[in-house]
């Protein structure tokens, strides 16, 4: 009887210990699950790269499990806005720069300043100054910079040669480019330039260089009024529209073509050139490996009219305002933007980094035929106005471009209407 009691006691103790061990894993450290969301998770090349990166992170931080949440590029703001408003946003999210002001103002991006201060003085010295400026709101850092690239012209050198132009002497002005585009166009079969004209976040990156190189701008310097009534803006707008309407050097259907459509046209030799960046060659290569994109494609600085300029692409990472694991989320963010990982993102995806100690020194970048052109353009890079109303302004502007492209309005009328509507939007802000 007594033996049975002892046996029972041992059994109960063993079960209790087992239950305790199960409840509190090794090291008595609770396993934290971080929700990580990024549009790149929907893209083959990037997804593989990110999955590898996350595996390295989980190995280094065994108590953190990263749960990935793919989102489409176009729908990310919708998803994050709704989730943030409901207090259910992912712990770490990826955004492009021009969405940031709206997220800052709505309180949807956690203030990272306390974490940065803990890292010690000089932590941010590794980054270029411009991206750092863009991630600050009211003097506080609310995001960490990610990819940092300029938009360049990416051309198929075989098609450039076939048009009778030497790839070594590619036109450096818009007039010269138009001549080339005409030579490269065979009506109904192939065209000189792929044009993104859809209402897509990628539109402004590809249109802005036209406006800026012609000496125009969207808004006045104080960001209070539209600057689309200047002769330079009118000239740039007309040039862009006429590429399609008069010269017909872009494929039909520009108003519904998004960046991926245009990359597909490049991959299938429908167009000779497109405005792209570091991501272009890997994606085109994935669409059509037979093209041998890395060999055939070549990057050129964007042609110039009055001044050299291009658009800057910057992606940024934010931490959800309601995260239950801010410290772990910061660890993940620090890891993603570390020197080691930024170099990996470049090697895998050909995107250059906002870190000086990567983009400015890594031989892999400095010797890459695409990256070196992209990096050389950084001093001429410009960002779109960082104001909350920017998405609305860009919607109006893209609409005007579409109206001119479809012939619903003349270029002058469409631009004048956009000018008035943008002023009305800015007046509401004032």
């Amino acid at each position, binding site marked *: 009887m007594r033996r049975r009691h002892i046996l029972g006691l041992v059994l109960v103790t063993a079960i209790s210990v087992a239950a305790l061990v199960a409840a509190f894993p090794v090291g008595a450290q609770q396993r934290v699950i971080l929700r990580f969301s990024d549009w790149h998770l929907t893209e083959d090349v990037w997804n593989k790269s990110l999955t590898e990166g996350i595996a390295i992170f989980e190995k280094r931080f065994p108590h953190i499990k990263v749960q990935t949440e793919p989102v489409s590029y176009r729908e990310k*703001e*919708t998803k994050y*806005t*709704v989730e943030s408003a409901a207090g259910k946003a992912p712990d770490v999210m990826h955004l492009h720069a021009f969405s940031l002001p*709206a997220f800052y*103002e*709505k309180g949807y991006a956690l203030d990272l300043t306390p974490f940065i201060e803990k890292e010690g003085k000089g932590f941010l010295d590794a980054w270029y100054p411009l991206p750092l400026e863009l991630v600050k709101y009211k003097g506080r850092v609310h995001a960490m910079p990610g990819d940092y690239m300029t938009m360049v012209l990416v051309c198929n050198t075989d098609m450039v040669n076939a048009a009778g132009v030497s790839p070594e002497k590619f036109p450096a002005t818009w007039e010269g480019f138009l001549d080339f585009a005409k030579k490269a166009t065979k009506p*109904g079969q192939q065209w000189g330039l792929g044009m993104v*004209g*859809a*209402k*897509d976040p990628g539109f402004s990156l590809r249109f802005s260089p036209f406006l800026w190189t012609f000496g125009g701008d969207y808004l006045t310097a104080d960001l209070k009024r539209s600057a689309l009534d200047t002769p330079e803006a009118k000239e740039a707008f007309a040039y862009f529209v006429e590429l399609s309407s008069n010269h017909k050097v872009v*494929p*039909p*259907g*520009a*108003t*519904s073509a998004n960046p991926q459509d245009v990359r597909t*046209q490049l991959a299938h030799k*429908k167009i000779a050139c497109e405005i792209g960046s570091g991501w272009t060659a890997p994606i085109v290569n994935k669409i059509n490996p037979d093209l041998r994109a890395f060999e055939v494609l070549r990057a050129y600085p964007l042609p110039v009219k009055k001044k050299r300029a291009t658009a800057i692409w910057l992606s940024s990472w934010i931490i959800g305002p309601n995260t239950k694991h801010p410290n772990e989320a910061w660890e993940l963010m620090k890891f993603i933007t570390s020197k080691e990982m930024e170099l990996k993102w470049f090697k895998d995806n050909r995107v250059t980094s906002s870190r000086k100690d990567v983009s400015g020194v890594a031989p892999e970048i400095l010797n890459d035929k695409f990256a070196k052109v992209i990096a050389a353009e950084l001093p001429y890079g410009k960002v779109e106005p960082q104001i*909350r*109303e920017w*998405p*609305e302004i860009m*919607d109006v502007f*893209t*609409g*005007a471009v*579409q*109206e001119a*492209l*479809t*012939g*619903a*309005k003349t270029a002058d009328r*469409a631009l004048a209407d956009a000018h008035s*509507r943008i002023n009305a939007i800015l007046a509401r802000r004032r």
Partner: protein
Amino acid sequence: MCLSVATARSTSIRTGYLFVLPALLLLLAVLGFPALWSLGLSFRAEGRDGFSLEQYRLLLEDSLFHQTFWNTGLLVGLSVAAHLGLGLAVALPLNLPLRGQATLRLVALLPWVVPDVVAGIIWKWLYNPLNGALNDVLVRLGLLTTPLDWLGAGHLPLVSVILANVWRGFPFVMLILLAGLQAIPRERYEAASIDGANALQRFRHITLPGLRKMLVVSLALDTVWEVRRFGLIQAMTQGGPGNLTEVLSTLVYKQYFAFFRFEYASAIAVVMAAVLLIVSLPYIRMISQEE
């Protein structure tokens, strides 16, 4: 005896309410609460607390809202009319005792089974001016000499969206009308034939009056569906080119999620809900009269 019948009846009613309660609570949570929240938001000025009619004033002044309202009316009016015409035209033969009737009915229903966004993507591909199937077929048939930019030339985009929408939505109307046709007694047609009525007369004096209620039901429900149509247009044009295909649902989405103007988006949504309520009144009245 009377008392026990009354008690049983009252218990039965209570049980009935209890069964309905979970659904009612769910509806209140997922529809009632957000609707009231949006209504409240629409009466607030951006960035300020307190009651305000600011958003409704902005609505009255906003030319984009006016154009969108007109676009929505055009899209809904033409789509619903086409749905009725095509739905009836397809329902009539499907009501005949044909061989393979079940398969034909299934095929006619297919567009309705396709999700809205998928339908939008399919039509965007079909309309593609570079390698779209529609241009290819029309050029091969000699109906076109050069491919058309269906989603980007002049006023064609709205027509193209309506065409896709007609394909997407007609099976719903067809289904309702087919049910109505099946409910008309065969004897009426036989009697009319014996009396010497021709097909047109039978259609005019038997089919149409027999379908009256179903026509009202399909008209009301289809109008409500079409005012809310979002995925198809968003996937095809995102309201473009310009604002040519912008409708109320895409405008609300844009104002809310792209421009972060929650209050203004709510005001548009409230106007949209009011319009839908007005449209559904004949249907609601008809249902109430039947009860």
